[in-house]
């Protein structure tokens, strides 16, 4: 079967180059659509022309890989509203893009996660952190790559960080998402879920408490144990499934907790240590999704 695929991007990263190669290996040449070129009439439908020159309705599927979360989310909403098939689905992306909504989805599905609270005011944020105990972590509800995470060592830290946020931050930073700090063993786990499988996982090691590879964390293969697989499948299902990266923390007593879920994951540093061609897995999943819908 030959599918017509659009790849929606902000710009071409290593991941998107790998994806294009993976599709090409399957005889598919996706149309690359830049989110900066979009100019969409919201009052009409998918028959309007995409920047590629084709109507959106001509595409069997759109793979959303925008670096811009805002643009990606709105386009998924729009395409889904028009009945255009997408990976990921809007509700999955929306749940992953907002840490509060991710936590709610995990809680609803009884997926283990660190203790977490939300508050919307400086005083109640302090109370939330007091409830969690110190150290704790304050995170913006949106954002990525470890940006603006704060480890809050004690109440004085909390007062300082909250005052900075109240004074300098826009309203987004006045939502205080406060999470229990998990004393992890110098690493966390990133597991890649594609459809119904946990295809591989890496340890991200760093002497810094923020272990994102975007912040210098090193990637090593992490065996996908039955326990990790079960947790990741449950986490993926909780947000609606698709192509996801599940960030997992190991507690000192050996439990696994889901920290975050990413819906447009980076994986350039993960195929080599795991030996899994992640781009090929994603391309195959996208084409399978088209087949299932046909």
């Amino acid at each position, binding site marked *: 079967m030959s599918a017509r695929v659009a790849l929606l991007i902000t710009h071409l990263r290593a991941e998107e180059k790998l994806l294009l190669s993976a599709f090409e290996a399957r005889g598919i040449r996706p149309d690359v659509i830049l989110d900066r070129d979009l100019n969409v009439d919201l009052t009409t439908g998918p028959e309007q022309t995409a920047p590629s020159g084709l109507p959106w309705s001509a595409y069997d599927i759109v793979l959303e890989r925008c670096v811009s979360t805002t643009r990606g989310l709105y386009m998924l909403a729009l395409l889904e509203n028009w009945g255009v098939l997408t990976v990921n689905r809007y509700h999955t992306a929306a749940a992953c893009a907002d840490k509060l909504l991710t936590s709610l989805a995990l809680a609803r599905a009884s997926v283990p996660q660190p203790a977490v609270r939300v508050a919307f005011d400086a005083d109640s944020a302090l109370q939330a952190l007091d409830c969690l105990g110190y150290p704790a972590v304050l995170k913006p509800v949106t954002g990525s790559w470890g940006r603006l995470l704060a480890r809050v060592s004690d109440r004085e830290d909390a007062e300082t960080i909250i005052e900075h946020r109240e004074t300098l931050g826009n309203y987004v930073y006045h939502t205080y998402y406060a999470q229990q700090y998990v004393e992890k063993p110098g690493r966390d786990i990133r597991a890649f879920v594609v459809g119904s499988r946990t295809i591989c996982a890496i340890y991200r090691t760093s002497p810094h408490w923020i272990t994102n590879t975007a912040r210098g964390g090193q990637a090593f293969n992490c065996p996908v144990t039955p326990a990790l697989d079960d947790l990741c499948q449950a986490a993926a299902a909780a947000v609606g499934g698709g192509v996801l990266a599940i960030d997992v923390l190991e507690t000192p007593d050996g439990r696994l907790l889901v920290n975050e879920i990413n819906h447009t*994951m980076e994986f350039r540093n993960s195929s080599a240590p795991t030996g899994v061609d992640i781009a090929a897995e994603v391309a195959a999943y996208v084409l399978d999704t088209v087949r299932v819908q046909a």
Partner: protein
Amino acid sequence: MTTTPCPECDANLSIPPGAMQNELIACPDCGAELEIISLDPFILDLAPAVEEDWGE
């Protein structure tokens, strides 16, 4: 045209092997992040600055 000046430091840059349109590259001289606007002709521009909602 297979070379073009870096828009930041004016170094003369060639198309990297395997490069694609809209790919981000770093200038080997000044380290500026650049976007390949076009391969033929070879045109570079400064990559857009990272925005608050960028991520994965």
